[in-house]
């Protein structure tokens, strides 16, 4: 575990305690069984504890703890699969508005994000794979503003959202990085239809159709046509946030599996005594430790905001994604039949892992970026 400051230590302890008391895996199971994508009561508690404002500046009612703080909470929540808009609104949308938005947008939205009274999300993906440059959705100049038309998929908490940060094209064609513009669009704007996507992690994902949605010039976040680069930076913050959740998921999958091997008896002995399984666990433990090092490095680099942030984010999303993939697979394998049942929790971990792996670029997309970054 990293060398934490006293404040961070308290934050982590607090998160650990809340998660184990209020949001164990059984809470997620109950939410899923009810058909809901998150529990509003828990989300209210999360906001009341101030976690939704962790990356929001103090001026707008946040605590400005940075990703170092937010990461600790996301990791703890990853352990018990807590479903909440914290990641997308409190980390991603808040980071976007904070770094790209103008003063009015900050004043309007950051305070509401921080106190949990508004949920803001990103509406960017259109195709089967995350790729911002491939955005085709049009934003047609229209009098003093723009008209947005197109369909977005995999919009996280798209049903609960009060506003969308929508990526659309003001010029160029799909494939160009130039010509992309980000708009902040209230969810109740005329012309928006949203449908819940039933994904296997049972979380909130939506398809959002924008049919001639009219927005004013004041809806533009950042510069017209210049959204790609600043948005990618925000997405790197998001990728590290996801990786923090994946780390928690890996840790819990590992701990649960280890515990199981120590109790399950076959051939008159606990499974933990078989060397084949010992060595598999030793290898997984090694990778888990590497994953933790990668995360601790990444949150620091992101908060420092320097040149190392991009590489660190690629590494976090790609490497920890690989570990999460393996860990969640082995969790099922090493549990045998029980691991295959819906009644047992292992399935939740593999499902959540696969969704997180794909979100904002999977492992092979990160290796591709790594190679490009290093010029080969």
């Amino acid at each position, binding site marked *: *575990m*990293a*060398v934490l*400051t006293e404040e961070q230590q308290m934050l982590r302890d607090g998160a650990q305690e809340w998660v184990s008391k209020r949001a164990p895996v059984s809470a997620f199971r109950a939410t899923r069984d009810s058909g809901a994508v998150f529990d509003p009561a828990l989300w209210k508690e999360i906001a009341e504890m101030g976690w939704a404002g962790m990356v929001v500046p103090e001026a707008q009612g946040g605590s400005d703890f940075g990703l170092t703080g937010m990461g600790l909470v996301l990791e703890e929540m990853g352990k018990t699969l807590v479903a909440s808009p914290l990641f997308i609104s409190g980390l991603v949308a808040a980071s976007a508005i904070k770094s790209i938005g103008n003063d009015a947008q900050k004043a309007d939205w950051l305070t509401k994000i921080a106190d949990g009274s508004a949920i803001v999300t990103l509406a960017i993906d259109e195709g089967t794979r995350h790729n911002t440059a491939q955005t085709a959705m049009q934003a047609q100049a229209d009098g003093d503003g723009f008209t947005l038309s197109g369909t977005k998929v995999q919009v996280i908490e798209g049903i609960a959202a009060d506003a969308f940060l929508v990526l659309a094209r003001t010029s160029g064609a799909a494939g160009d990085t130039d010509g992309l513009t980000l708009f902040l669009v209230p969810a109740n704007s005329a012309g928006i239809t949203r449908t819940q996507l039933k994904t296997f992690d049972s979380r909130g994902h939506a398809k959002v159709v924008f049919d001639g949605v009219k927005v004013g010039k004041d809806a533009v976040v950042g510069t017209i046509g210049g959204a790609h680069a600043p948005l990618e930076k925000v997405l790197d913050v998001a990728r590290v946030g996801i990786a923090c959740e994946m780390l928690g998921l890996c840790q819990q999958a590992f*701990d649960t599996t*280890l515990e199981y*091997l*120590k109790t399950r008896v076959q051939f008159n*002995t*606990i499974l*933990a*005594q078989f*060397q084949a*399984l*010992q*060595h598999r*666990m*030793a*290898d997984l*433990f*090694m990778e888990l*430790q*590497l*994953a*933790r*090092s*990668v995360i*601790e*490095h990444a949150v*620091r*680099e992101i*908060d*420092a*905001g*320097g040149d*190392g942030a991009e590489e660190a984010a*690629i*590494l976090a999303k*790609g*490497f920890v994604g*690989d570990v999460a993939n393996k860990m969640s697979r082995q969790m099922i394998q090493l549990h045998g039949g029980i691991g295959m049942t819906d009644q047992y929790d292992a399935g939740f971990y593999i499902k959540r892992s696969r969704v997180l792996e794909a979100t904002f670029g999977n492992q*092979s997309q*990160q*290796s*591709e970026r*790594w*190679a*490009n970054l*290093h*010029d*080969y």
Partner: protein
Amino acid sequence: MVYQFVAGRATARPSRNAEKGRSKPMNAQDSQLAAFRAEAREWLAKNFPKSLTGKRDVLMDIAPRYPEGEDWAAWKTAMGDKGWGTPTWPTEYGAGGLSRQEAMILDDEIERIGAFNPIVGMGVNMLGPTLLEFGTDEQRAQHLPLVVRGAVNWCQGYSEPGAGSDLASLKTKAEDKGDHYLVNGQKIWTSGSMYADWCFCLVRTSNDHKHEGISFLLIDMHSPGVEVRPITLISGKQTFAEVFFTDVKVEKGNLVGDLRQGWTIAKRLMQHERNGIGARKVSVGELRPVHEVAKEYIGTDDQGRLSDYDLRARIARHQMWERAQRLTVARVVEESKQGPSEATSVMKNAGSVSIQTREELLMEIMGNRGIGWEGDDYLPVEIEQTRQMLQNKANSIYGGTYEIQANIISKRILGMLDHQ
């Protein structure tokens, strides 16, 4: 949590990015460290011979032979006299006496200019820390100053033909003859023993107990009755040998720790050893990035991508793994208050995976130029790389094999019990 990765928790160290982030006002300690950095930088600029820049790979072996030459000698003397080759050891032995933070800064500065630490070998990585922990004042006074100056070569007499992974089954015996021990037996795979002055050796002083019958003895390799027979490895190099002890007399003052404490000391020393293997640092310019070699041998497409896409992806995956492994080394250093811990087994295995994957990739990249053994048809660097790939297969064997480390991780860290 049922396990702990590293023992103890460290005090915070200044992040390398402290300057970039919301930087706090400098406190007294920070300015002291900044002053030390300036001092180190200036001293290194003055003393490191430029001709040796990036030449550290010559010293990469576990028991390297120090090269001849004026600049090499000058650099060793400079660092040895300054005590910075053993930066954190006490000044009373002529060592650096630096704090851990200062040592990290020194390391940074050494790396920054493509320099390296010339004080290497088993005296530094293994014996020194062990004597500091278990040695007598006389033993430290006799041996440490020589190690600090790189004036002595040590070798490790652990393995025997019948005692490898099951090291405690070793048979080389030391009989008590009143004023000395009489040593008889055979060691094998003893790295650097061909040019070693001293050997730290595990010997059996009693047959009544497997582990407690073992003692830790320092043996002068120039004593009568010591015979060394070099063994050629698959790399064509001769880095280790068989060592025979026939009626070798060893003074009693050369016993480290108590008579039956040898196994405890041996295990502690192996943690230092594994730490050294896993944490082995690669300095700037020392190892060429794999992708650069690949671009040279394989070429790129019109967008500048390596033309072999599958290989390109595997290189990226490897480099990410390697980065994760190095970050782990840094994290362990940052977290652990004192010396190596169980985490060393994790690091050793992670380090072997890194280096061996790298070497296999390079071999593949070089194609038919990667299979040369000798002759002018191959470049010296190609032959060296090929031999290195073979030599580094030992990385997952010595210091306790990959499998033995996995046993340690699963049993000691994870508490997966053994068959009783």
